[in-house]
């Protein structure tokens, strides 16, 4: 099963490399957002506890503008029926999830690099904890965004609905992630951040399980 997921992932990757639509548009999206923040700041210096929150705001909206393509593009190209024929629903969810995971890790690393470059105060006292937060947060966003994207694609690709539907689902994740980013900027320990980190891991697992359970219903018309 993993192999067919991998095959689906490779197919998405190849069609992405051919057009480079998602990477180009998302890259531009990040640059535009960060430059808007820079313009609005002018010569002011951004306070340290604000940079963590702003980072996740940019991450959220980048995800919302890019991750719905995984399913919407299939509907647009009319290849849904072919996918129905060749693969089981679980395989399709897995393949799309791999692709979205790759995309979001790439995008957020770029955002992170830009933030470290432009904001002097975006320096972590405990980078190891932030790395964990970054990984768990990205996985959570990718999983929740993938299952919502499947719903959106069936609702004939209503793009404005995507952030509306995703926000309440992602809100618990975002609250914890923003809180942890703030504390890891100021410096924290594993014992202090333990409950929040384990909550993030639980969120990822619960989302993965519920996506796995419910995807069949979305996918079968």
């Amino acid at each position, binding site marked *: 099963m993993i192999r067919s997921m991998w095959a689906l992932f490779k197919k998405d990757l190849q069609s992405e490399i051919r057009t480079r639509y998602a990477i180009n548009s998302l890259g531009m999206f990040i640059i535009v957002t960060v430059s808007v923040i820079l313009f609005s700041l002018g010569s002011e210096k951004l306070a340290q506890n604000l940079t963590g929150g702003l980072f996740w705001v940019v991450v959220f909206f980048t995800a919302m503008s890019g991750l719905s393509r995984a399913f919407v593009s299939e509907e647009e190209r009319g290849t849904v029926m072919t996918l129905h024929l060749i693969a089981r629903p679980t395989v399709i969810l897995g393949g799309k999830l791999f692709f979205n995971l790759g995309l979001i890790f790439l995008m957020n690393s770029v955002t992170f690099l830009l933030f470290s470059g432009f904001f002097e105060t975006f320096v972590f006292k405990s980078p190891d904890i932030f790395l964990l937060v970054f990984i768990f947060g990205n996985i959570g966003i990718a999983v929740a965004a993938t299952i919502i994207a499947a719903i959106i694609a069936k609702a004939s690709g209503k793009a404005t*609905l995507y952030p509306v539907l995703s*926000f309440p689902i992602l809100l*618990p994740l975002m609250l914890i992630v923003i809180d942890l980013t703030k504390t890891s900027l100021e410096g924290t320990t594993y014992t202090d951040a333990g409950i929040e980190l384990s909550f993030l891991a639980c969120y990822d697992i619960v*989302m993965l399980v519920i996506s796995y359970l419910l995807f069949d219903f979305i996918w079968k018309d």
Partner: protein
Amino acid sequence: MFKKFTVYILISLVSIVGISFPIVKSPEKWYEFPNIPGLEENAKIIFFHVPLSWLAVLAFLMSTYFSIRYLRKKDFTDDLKSYTSAQLGLIFCILATVTGSVWAKLAWGSFWNWDPRETSIFAILLIYGAYFALRSSLDNEEKRATLAAVYSCIAFITVPFFVFIMPRIMTGLHPGSADDSTSGPVVSFKMNMNMRVVFFVSLGAFTLLYSWLWSLGYRALLLKEKFLKSQEGLEQ
């Protein structure tokens, strides 16, 4: 009919008793409520605000329950049941937010200041809003029922976190939050017997009100569907 009158009598009883009985330092007579430190006279809102928030969550639970039933059996009436429950839940959720906000103005001095409890009720409002936005965007009945049911299931797993976990692990001003030592778990420790009786009667009365409204709304929706179907039949 019987249910209607029971609800009427119980809710008027709770309103009269809850508002008129005095709050005193050391209650002796049967009609006196104890003084809860940190809440004082504002404590009376507990008879209305807490049942309303309880119903906002209960209605959501029922909506999800019928969604799951719809996904299992594909019975169209289950979708209508789920939809009715969500509609009522939204009304109760708005009422709970408004009463909570009024209380916050009196107790904390501002209508809204992103206390964990306020964040959580806001998130539930958002979930209801997203649910209705999704429903209204879909024309095909079967698709609408399935996707709304799936969304309601996904959204429901975040609710326990908002309602039960977050307000208790984060520090906040709402009675019952993590650092609250004065007015801690209000229901179990700080209320005396008569206050508890009024509180649970109120909880029961509001739940009954919900179930009456729900069956009314469900039957109305069912008739509307029937009417629309018969009209379609006439046109053909």
